[in-house]
């Protein structure tokens, strides 16, 4: 058994070291199946679009490939995927992961080999914050192009307190790093603003019956409910709240802003307030070209909420790569190339569809715009407010 294993490893190593065509890979790690599968597939399409454009443009003296891996929005699977990626010696950077719960453990794997990663969607502050911990031994290789939950949660709190002048809220979350982080940030800011948090509860992902909890919340008589979580639970909460006659305003974050919300909640989704990171892509002046190219390459495919972030993240990597890998020989020493790319990304100043992206010392984007939207059932859309 041991001999067989070492033989296999030897063969694999030999295959890895042998002569090869000049190819650099960008790994795309995100959920491609499961609940979040359609969202992840959207991002993957955007990554593939950006890489295909780079290949066509002949900007690079080597071929670029996308290596797509499915983490099924499951943290355990994300670590498996991350290990697969770091063992692929042609990968020079990662676009991923989607869920914060996946990005955080996976980022630690990438950091061990100094592989740069840009998340197009993970918003939990810990993802980049962890690099400043004293126990962090690797390089600071983590970046993201989306504003974090502290900004999103605070934005909702201020919006509710100042614009809507509501004071008494019940706060819920789904116990995931994303959902709970968002809810905690909301609660913190809302209390600082002077609001009152009547209750703070967690629900389980996969649970479908929230009526007991909502009945208790109804008895507290809040002005509104804030939920940190994803669209399935948001939808069930909205629907069951309406059935129980809990007619209050309902708020959630970017994880719920997807048309799947209307499938789960039905008409009860109407009027729900959802923050999104950045400006909705259809209102982004710089994104028109991207939308057109996306629909051209993928006719009949709907643009998903984080696709343009995936496109931007890929292009930021490509811009950095163009600077640090001027010749085909640059691919000879991948670890050095990865390290050079990390250093290059640190000084990024990229003008793309999101506007200008620069990173702070943690790797968070300084482009921190949040938009409040409201769900409209009749045309399954989200209308930006303000």
């Amino acid at each position, binding site marked *: 058994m041991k001999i067989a294993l070492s033989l296999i490893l030897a063969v694999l190593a030999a295959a890895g070291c042998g002569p090869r065509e000049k190819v650099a890979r960008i790994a795309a790690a995100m959920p491609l*199946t*499961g*609940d979040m*599968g*359609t969202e992840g597939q959207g991002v993957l399409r955007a990554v593939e679009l950006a890489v295909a454009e780079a290949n066509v443009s002949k900007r690079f003296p080597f071929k670029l490939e996308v290596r797509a891996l499915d983490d099924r929005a499951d943290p355990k699977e994300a670590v498996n995927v991350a290990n697969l990626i770091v063992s692929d010696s042609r990968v020079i950077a990662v676009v991923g992961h989607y869920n914060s719960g996946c990005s955080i453990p996976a980022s630690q794997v990438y950091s061990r080999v100094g592989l740069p990663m840009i998340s197009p969607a993970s918003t939990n502050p810990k993802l980049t914050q962890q690099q400043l911990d004293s126990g962090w031994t690797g390089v600071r290789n983590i970046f993201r192009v989306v504003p974090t939950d502290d900004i999103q949660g605070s934005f909702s709190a201020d919006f509710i307190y100042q614009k809507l002048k509501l004071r008494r809220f019940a706060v819920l979350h789904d*116990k995931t790093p994303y959902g709970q982080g968002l809810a905690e940030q909301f609660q913190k800011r809302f209390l600082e603003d002077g609001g009152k948090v009547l*209750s*703070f*509860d*967690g*629900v*389980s992902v*996969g*649970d*479908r*019956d*929230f*009526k*007991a*909890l909502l*009945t*208790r919340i*109804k*008895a507290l008589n809040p002005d509104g409910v804030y939920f940190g979580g994803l669209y*399935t639970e948001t*939808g*069930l909460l909205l*629907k*069951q709240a309406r*059935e*129980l*006659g809990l007619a209050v305003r309902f708020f959630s974050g970017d994880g719920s802003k997807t048309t*799947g919300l209307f*499938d*789960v*909640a*039905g008409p009860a989704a109407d009027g729900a307030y959802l923050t999104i990171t950045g400006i909705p892509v259809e209102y982004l002046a710089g994104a028109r070209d991207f939308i057109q190219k996306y629909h051209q390459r993928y006719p009949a495919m709907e643009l998903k909420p984080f696709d343009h972030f995936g496109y931007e993240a890929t292009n930021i990597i490509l811009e950095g790569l163009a600077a640090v890998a001027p010749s085909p020989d640059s691919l000879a020493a991948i670890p050095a190339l990865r390290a050079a790319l990390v250093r290059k990304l640190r000084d990024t100043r990229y003008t793309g569809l999101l506007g200008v992206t620069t990173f702070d010392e943690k790797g968070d984007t300084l482009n921190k715009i949040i938009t409040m939207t409201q769900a409209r059932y009749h045309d399954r859309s989200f209308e930006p407010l303000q």
Partner: protein
Amino acid sequence: MLLQQLVNGLTLGAIYSLIALGYTLVYGILMLINFAHSEVLMVGAFVGLGVQLFFPPSLTSGPLGLALVFTLAMAAAGALNVVVERLAYRPLRNISRLAPLISAIGVSIILQNAVFLWVSNQSQTFPDIMKMRSFQFAGADISSLQIVILFTALGLMAALHFFIQKTRVGKAMRACADDMEAAELMGIDTKRIVAVTFLVGGALGGAAGALNGMYYGSIKYNLGFLPGMKAFTAAVLGGIGNIQGAVLGGFILGLLEVAVAGYLPNGAEWKDVIAFVVLICVLLARPSGILGEKIGEKV
């Protein structure tokens, strides 16, 4: 609020009870835990949705639609359960206790992934079969749906009771549960009785799946897992193999969950923990469940 929570708990409990019956019926006869039952229930929900998409809306709304959706969902889930028994359990009977159990887990994974890959991996809207109305009663908002669910479940339980106690096949089922060999010697076609048991258990699971879809308004490939686990717990709580026990266990679990989530601060996070702590305590005091007996009639 008390009345509202009571209705919430009873509705949840009714669904758990229906599912628990499927576990307990099979266990009563074969001493087998049919882990594929949660997927049978999920398939029932998808058949319920399929019926609504396939037939014109005029046939699938109102009481007539309710009857049509339930009949077909129950028939399909029952038939599926029979096929599963025939292919995955019967060849393994009398080999070991463990083999059919592993086979059951395998079937569960296969069914879940089949729906995931071939039908949909997303939440699907389960249309309203009946126009939902809400009744204000003593400060509680009770939906017509909750009433329909409660009465459908109770009606099915009553029908099951009648079937087992008053019909010849039911009598044969009880005989098989008592002593399979003796029943065979008395001329009972035990293979057929086992198949009937799977048919009835699966049909109840299919009904629970359709109720689940109606109640929550959407269905998904993994919807069976959690209620399946809970209902299995309920069956053990009430005394697995015992029909009254399954019903009792289901309602206790439903009410308990609602009580914890609805009255304790931060209870929603703890409801599963507390539900299982109660289960362990009950089993410590009464190892065979509330109504379970060590030896004797199991059905």
